[in-house]
């Protein structure tokens, strides 16, 4: 399994790098910041065009385990002095994201890029900047790894 893991991630990385070198193919607003190994990658995400998040740049942290791609990677927004997570009804202030694609709806036919694009469109289609319900309670008790949280996916609109 882990042979699949390393080979597939290297393929994805290679593809991302080829895409980023070619402006016609690059997914606009998504950029690979760092991929030193096959355990943790960082992306920057911004929503181009008209949206509530105009001129805001967010950083996404993607962590893999050797079960990838059979298990989804752990994805969350980076929270630091420099970058803050977006204010969004599905994004907690600790950076955790409630999106079915990161949990039950993950499929090994998806890719890291597919996740980034999904999250970008999740931001783009947001109609009201607000924190998720129960944010404070969740953030106080949340595990370090968002994959340990059992989210309930209820909202198909955003």
């Amino acid at each position: 399994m882990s042979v699949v893991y390393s080979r597939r991630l290297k393929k994805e990385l290679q593809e991302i790098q080829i895409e980023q070198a070619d402006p016609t193919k690059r997914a606009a607003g998504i950029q690979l910041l760092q991929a030193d190994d096959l355990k943790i990658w960082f992306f920057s995400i911004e929503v181009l065009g008209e949206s509530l998040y105009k001129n805001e740049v967010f950083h996404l942290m993607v962590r893999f385990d050797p079960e990838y791609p059979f298990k989804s990677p752990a994805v969350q927004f980076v929270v630091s002095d420099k970058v803050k997570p977006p204010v969004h009804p599905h994004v907690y202030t600790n950076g955790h994201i409630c999106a079915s694609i990161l949990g039950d709806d993950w499929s090994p036919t998806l890719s890291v890029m597919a996740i980034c694009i999904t999250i970008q469109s999740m931001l783009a289609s947001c109609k009201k900047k607000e924190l998720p319900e129960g944010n404070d309670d969740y953030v106080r008790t949340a595990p370090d790894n968002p994959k340990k949280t059992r989210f309930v996916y209820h909202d198909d609109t955003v």
Partner: protein
Amino acid sequence: MWKNDPKELLNSTDIQDPTDFPPSSTTPGLRALDNALRCKICQELYEAPVVLTCGHCFCSLCARNQLSEKPACPTCWKEAAISSFRVNPAMEEAVTAWKDARPFVLRVIDEAIDLRTTASESSRPAKRHKPDTPVLSNSVSPRKQSRGHDNPGPSRGRDGPDGNTPNDDVEQDTCSNTNNSKSSVECPVCGKSVPMTKINAHLDTNCKHYSILSGGKNASSSKSGQKDAWSKLLDGKRSGKDKERPEAEVEAMSPLPKASYTVLKDKQIRDLLAAQDLSTAGDRSQLISRHERWVALYNANLDRSPALRKRLAELRLEMRRWEEDRRASRKDPLKIDITEYRRANKAEFERLVQRARGKPGQESPRAPDSSASLSDRAASCDLRGPVGASGSETDTILVTSDVEG
């Protein structure tokens, strides 16, 4: 397997993917073709391709791994089960041929692009080339791809006219047009080379006579392919008669049954592993995952066509590599140190203890939500807002035991 070395990551040359080919404006269809012959899970060219009931195709091992996570097709989420796999020999054949052709095609493209750039530099550098001009036609013709498996059937030529039995005469009539001299075939029973004309007589004498000692003229690869094909055809019809075939080859014919580990005791699982010559070390979960992995590897191998199957020794090697990878990845950085976690959340635990002791009747308004989300997801689907349940079930259990202790 991969150390944290960015250079090694970037300089990897053994990774092949569809982007090895130029975009479709330069070489129409090649990128798409390479992509079409790849499993959507591992992104490699199909290994032992199988088709699910929905029609989507995956490597057998990939599909087995995925279905143990979730019994549905990862592309369309239609229900799927290992028992309803259909092998896809047509895809396998296409992939085998493409594996042969791929490096050749890539080389030809490189040469053609080189030619084109030198030509355009010398003649009319200003004018743009039409991007969709087929650039390959000139360079393809001089080389012909030679492939061993194009014609896997036994050669139909024949020996001199010295056949004696009546069967021989019949055969002589049917293939007298294709008169390659000295043609031989592989005996399906003993595997020795026998003159085409003598094969029936050879079989009639229980493989005692007429074999050619020096061996046939077939290439060794197609020979073993033939042998496998024969042995698959004839397996089951001849019980116990063939002393000459190695044991492993015979036993490799039937898939291993899945075990229902929940009703098995540790010892029984160890017995299962021992029966497959596998290690019986480790705790129960290790034993189970080892056996599961072996069954998946073994049965996936049977989804290849017989000529392409790996030997048991190769499977064991893969198994050993998998165990090593697992051992290495057990020190997973994603795992939390429990004592660290306890210390970091001490205040929170104390708060919970206080609350639990102080007002047993009162519960916070959020409590029903989180318990529902843990126990019954379906029922809680209509809840407002994503429920921030405090950690997974294991975490919650951990918290509870802390409160009590």
